[in-house]
């Protein structure tokens, strides 16, 4: 049976009781250009619905209505994978009546599929929908590419609502969201602002420190034999990660190496490598720029995948189970190689795992790239403020001044020590940083625990403290 089409949210709320369903989910594929979360939550504000449990896959600075609901005390708990901006600041300072749970991309999908996280209504921005409620993200006037983070929600929510500004007359033959899972389609004027949908982070760094880190990273990957025919690879969309990818592509061209797949967030740089025959497939859970979006629409080897297929360990087709190398960033690391990308050293929420700990725990080689110092702050602490990814999943930490190898990776260490690369212990790296910065005194955290970091095995990795 096709879904019910509504021409406004007001019409939708004639079908569903806004006061009855309080576990709400959203996806973040439209990033800072998203209109859907603010528009939907405005109705919850106006109707003074209290005790809301929100499950957005991420929270961006433009999600201002969420802040308003927080200030009005209408939100009981938040479960998400990443948050920054005013909402993150507010939660850090005030906490929630209930809990903040920071999941991973794979963990969120798993938790929804397992029914561990209950979703009453999933409000899903859908750039293009057909008459049967099938949807894709790579078509439409406000296209965003893959809808990977929305798939589990669409399949397991009590009520699935697509919000769209584009209804196609032709059927979608290979939808990311299946019409059979959709209950309502709400047609609005615009689901987003194109300027905010495309990430601004897809430039290859030319900063000398970033260039140096990337250069050392590629040299290290080469030394350990990771750059070989058929290898698989994931890097983020940050400038250093993209520089690593770019330098890898030069080596691959020289040696006529083809990678099997790249996964995760995809950019135009990855697309260019696909089109140059340097990689066989792109498994795309999130597009970072329009070049990636357009490629997804036209190239069969650029494959949109759900967050579950991406990183749910219970998914039999989990892509990252075959991942050879992942390049990840860090806000802090510690002497046990634990990584924090969730809070700053004051305990203020500035991000979250996303796929950080998912990929680190699966990849054969996990490389953390980061400057050894940011201003006066050294990267390496005795103990990170918040554990996002456990040190046992981290193999190499590459900074501009040296490379630290996890003590259990004696195989990697032996290979790296045969080169002229600056391999040293993590304690030595920390001492180098301290010779410039001194050893900073950790700011005290608040006593109240306002949230937890949960990995995809449902293990609680750490507590998040209220900002003091």
């Amino acid at each position, binding site marked *: 049976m096709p879904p019910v089409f509504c021409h406004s949210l007001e019409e939708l709320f004639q079908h569903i009781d806004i006061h009855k369903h309080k576990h709400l989910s959203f996806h973040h594929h439209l990033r800072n250009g998203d209109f859907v979360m603010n528009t939907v939550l405005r109705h919850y504000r106006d109707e003074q619905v209290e005790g809301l449990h929100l499950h957005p896959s991420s929270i961006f600075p433009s999600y201002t209505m969420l802040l308003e609901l927080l200030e009005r005390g209408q939100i009981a708990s938040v479960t998400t994978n990443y948050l920054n901006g005013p909402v993150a600041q507010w939660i850090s300072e005030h906490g929630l009546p209930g809990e903040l749970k920071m999941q991973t991309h794979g963990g969120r999908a798993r938790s929804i599929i397992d029914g561990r996280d209950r979703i009453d209504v999933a409000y899903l921005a859908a750039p293009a929908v057909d008459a049967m409620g099938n949807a894709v993200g790579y078509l439409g006037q406000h296209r965003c590419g893959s809808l990977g983070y929305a798939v589990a929600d669409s399949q397991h929510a009590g009520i699935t609502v697509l919000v769209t500004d584009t209804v196609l007359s032709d059927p979608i033959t290979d939808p990311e969201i299946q019409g059979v899972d959709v209950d309502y389609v709400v047609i609005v004027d615009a689901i987003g602002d194109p300027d905010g949908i495309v990430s601004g982070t897809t430039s290859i760094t030319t900063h000398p420190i970033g260039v*140096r880190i990337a250069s050392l990273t590629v040299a290290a990957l080469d030394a350990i034999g990771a750059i070989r025919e058929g290898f698989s690879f994931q890097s983020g969309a940050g400038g250093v990660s993209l520089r690593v990818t770019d330098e890898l592509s030069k080596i691959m061209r020289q040696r006529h190496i083809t990678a099997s797949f790249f996964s995760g967030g995809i950019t135009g740089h990855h697309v260019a490598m696909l089109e140059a025959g340097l990689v066989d497939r792109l498994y795309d859970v999130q597009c970072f720029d329009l070049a990636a979006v357009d490629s997804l629409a036209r190239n069969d080897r650029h494959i949109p995948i759900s967050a579950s297929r991406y990183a749910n360990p219970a998914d039999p087709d989990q892509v990252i189970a075959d991942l050879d190398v992942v390049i990840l960033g860090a806000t802090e690391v510690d002497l046990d190689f634990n990584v924090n990308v969730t809070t700053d050293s004051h305990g203020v929420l500035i991000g979250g795992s996303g796929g950080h700990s998912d990929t680190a725990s699966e990849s054969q080689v996990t490389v953390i790239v980061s400057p050894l110092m940011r*201003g006066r702050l050294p990267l390496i602490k005795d103990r990170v403020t918040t554990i996002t990814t456990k040190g046992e999943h981290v193999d190499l930490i590459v900074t501009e001044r040296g490379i630290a190898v996890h003590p259990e990776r004696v195989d990697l260490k032996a290979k790296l020590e045969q080169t002229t690369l600056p391999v040293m212990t993590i304690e030595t790296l920390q001492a180098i940083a301290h010779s410039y910065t001194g050893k900073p005194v950790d700011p005290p955290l608040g006593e109240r625990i306002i949230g937890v970091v949960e990995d995809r095995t449902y293990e609680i990795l750490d507590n998040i403290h209220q900002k003091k």
Partner: protein
Amino acid sequence: MSRSYLFIPGNTPSMIQSHDVYDSDAVILDLEDSVAVYDKDAARELVRSFLAAHRGNVEVFVRINDVDSGHFHRDVSAVDDLAINGYVLPKANPQAIDALAKACNHPILPIIEDPQAVLDAYAIVRHPQVKGAILGAEDLTKEMMIERTSDGIEIHHVRSHLALVCHALQKPFIDTPWTVVDDLDGLAKDASLARSLGATGKAAIHPNHVALINDLFGPSESAIRDAERILAKASETGKGAFRLDGKMIDEPIVEKARRLIAAAARYNKR
């Protein structure tokens, strides 16, 4: 003999702190053109404080302001008691070299950047405290009111002349920096040309230029392999002269191979 000489503005703490991570064989902490007049005092203090506390494993020079600038003596005295590798002296001429030599005991790298200095190059470089020469092509072409081009035809003669002077005096000739920051292809052509004319190294105004300069001015992989084979054969035969690949190898060639391997070791290539 250093391959790369990276200029670092003397008023940028983050770059100074990272001076030893860019892989440049030498860095030149700059108190001259990259530092505005109102910032000269602060730059002097910053460079002095940093060098007094930290030294990475690279050669460190300080470019002071020229002798007529009004900053000259304060620049010299700011770091004179520190273990720097020398001063880089802009707008060099024989009288300026004498003035600086009188004020300090450190080695001097003069920048040859006006027509008269080119003509006086031999007199400048032969001074015992002078350890080489840097071509400053931007100022030189400005003085001559000629266009500075990417193929460098306008400085071809000067490069050759300075290379001859420096080689005659057995001192390094350091080529002028490439100033188009993002044009690495242009840098590669420019540096290759300079090397073919006799430059032993090249100055750089951006850290991202260093790797390419090091590659072009350092021993190549094939040269290293050849040198290793020569030394292996020399060791195996124990003779003063022997044949390798149909060529006669004698002691000067063996010694050249030894120097090349030593340079490769210094540059972490072996």
